[in-house]
């Protein structure tokens, strides 16, 4: 039976967590280790760090961050953003990241998915998609893959794309709805369900959570096995424990907070 994972997502710039965070008892709101420990205590099942560092040269700070988190926090974590080569992935995994997530780089060069999966295993190769509803003819699913942070359409059908990357070796798909991102209207459940029905690997719902009541539909109607949120956790509007209580109240099985 599926036990749905709750995953806080943290944006990281040069090894520091950016955006909000109002936790009491925290010394440094930008310290990824301290924040990871807080989410672990709240019962987070995994963490995702999204690297938004603009300069490629400064990404060494992200490798150092992975090492620091792995030394202190003993739950799985994924690093996404800026991974373009097998070597980029190797450095992060060797430093202690459990998975890497690739998005635009996979669109630019789909073989990267196979290269990472072949070398390190499918279980550590997450493909994230930014998708948007479309009525463009030829995109049969009605969902199109976007890149560059959701600003640029690719003309690729999202459902054909996720089938392809799973065939190439992706072990997990993170589905982010551009339409819903930042709206607080809840996940795009149709999009999530379309992806979950198209592939046989775990699917993470992402984009649009406004409150703890938005999590359960992602699992029940969307068919996701993991639910992700950023701002409601970072701004202290809800804890991971509260998210799990809401999921359990809707009949979704979760690992209970300690």
């Amino acid at each position, binding site marked *: 039976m*599926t036990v*749905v994972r709750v995953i806080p997502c943290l944006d990281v710039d040069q090894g520091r967590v950016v955006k909000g965070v109002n936790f009491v008892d925290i010394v440094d709101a930008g310290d990824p280790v301290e924040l990871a420990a807080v989410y672990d205590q709240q019962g987070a099942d995994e963490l995702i760090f999204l690297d938004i560092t603009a300069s490629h040269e400064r990404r060494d700070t992200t490798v150092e961050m992975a*090492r620091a988190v792995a*030394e202190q926090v*003993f739950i799985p974590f994924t690093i996404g953003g800026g991974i373009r080569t097998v070597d980029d992935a190797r450095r992060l995994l060797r430093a202690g990241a459990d998975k890497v997530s690739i998005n635009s780089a996979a669109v630019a060069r789909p073989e990267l998915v196979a290269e990472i999966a072949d070398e390190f295993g499918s279980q*550590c190769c997450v493909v994230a998609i930014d998708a948007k509803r479309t009525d463009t003819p030829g995109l049969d699913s009605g969902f199109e893959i976007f890149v560059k942070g959701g600003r640029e359409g690719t003309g690729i059908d999202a459902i054909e794309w996720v089938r392809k990357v799973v065939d190439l070796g992706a072990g997990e798909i993170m589905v982010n709805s551009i339409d819903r991102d930042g709206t607080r209207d809840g996940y795009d459940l149709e999009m999530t369900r379309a992806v979950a029905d198209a592939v046989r690997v*775990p699917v993470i719902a992402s984009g649009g959570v406004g409150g703890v009541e938005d999590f359960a539909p992602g699992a029940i109607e969307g068919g996701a096995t993991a639910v992700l949120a950023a701002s409601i956790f970072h701004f202290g509007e809800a804890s991971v424990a509260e998210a799990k209580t809401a999921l359990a109240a809707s009949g979704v099985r979760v690992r209970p907070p300690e």
Partner: protein
Amino acid sequence: MSEPAADGPLIAVLDYGIGNLHSAHQSFCHVGANAHLTADRGLIADAAAVVLPGVGAFGACMRALHDSGLATVAIDAAADDRPFIGICVGMQLLYEGSEESPGVEGLGILPGQVGWLPKTEIRPQMQWNQLDLTDAGTTDPLLDGLDRSWMYFVHSLVGPGAPEVTATCQYGGAQTAAVRRGSVWATQFHPEKSARAGLQLLTNFTRIAGADA
């Protein structure tokens, strides 16, 4: 950072050059073991206990184990009564072979073949799941205090349902989660990624290693 504890039992984490071995090593240091990620035969021979981690595909891990010269070292270490633990794919390598990589011989330390999880379930099982201890598990010092605890699993294949199973988890039926044969232990889940419950298991193993040393 967590340094190896100088006065803790020497635990050798076999370094055969695959993905994330750092976490297994770090987590043992964190619970007070004098843990070393190493391919040094001398150090491994001196260790009070040996850890065989593993991620990725069975065939690739077996190849890396042979290439690094550590396959025979692992077999010898498991045979000589020192505490030995295989983790995740490191557990699967202990069997005779795996449906994942037909034709590739495993270490043969435990009898039987590794098989696919049921087709009806999402593969991999990538989630936390709850341990059910078997009768043998309730007296196993490795699992002391851990009945019904939650552990993190990532796997598409699983060891056989008998013998020597100490814990199972439910995933399309009862699946083998942990085994013990004498001084050889193995877990399908990742204790090093299972928060406080996982660290408790590593503490238990370190205690076993210390008592034995």
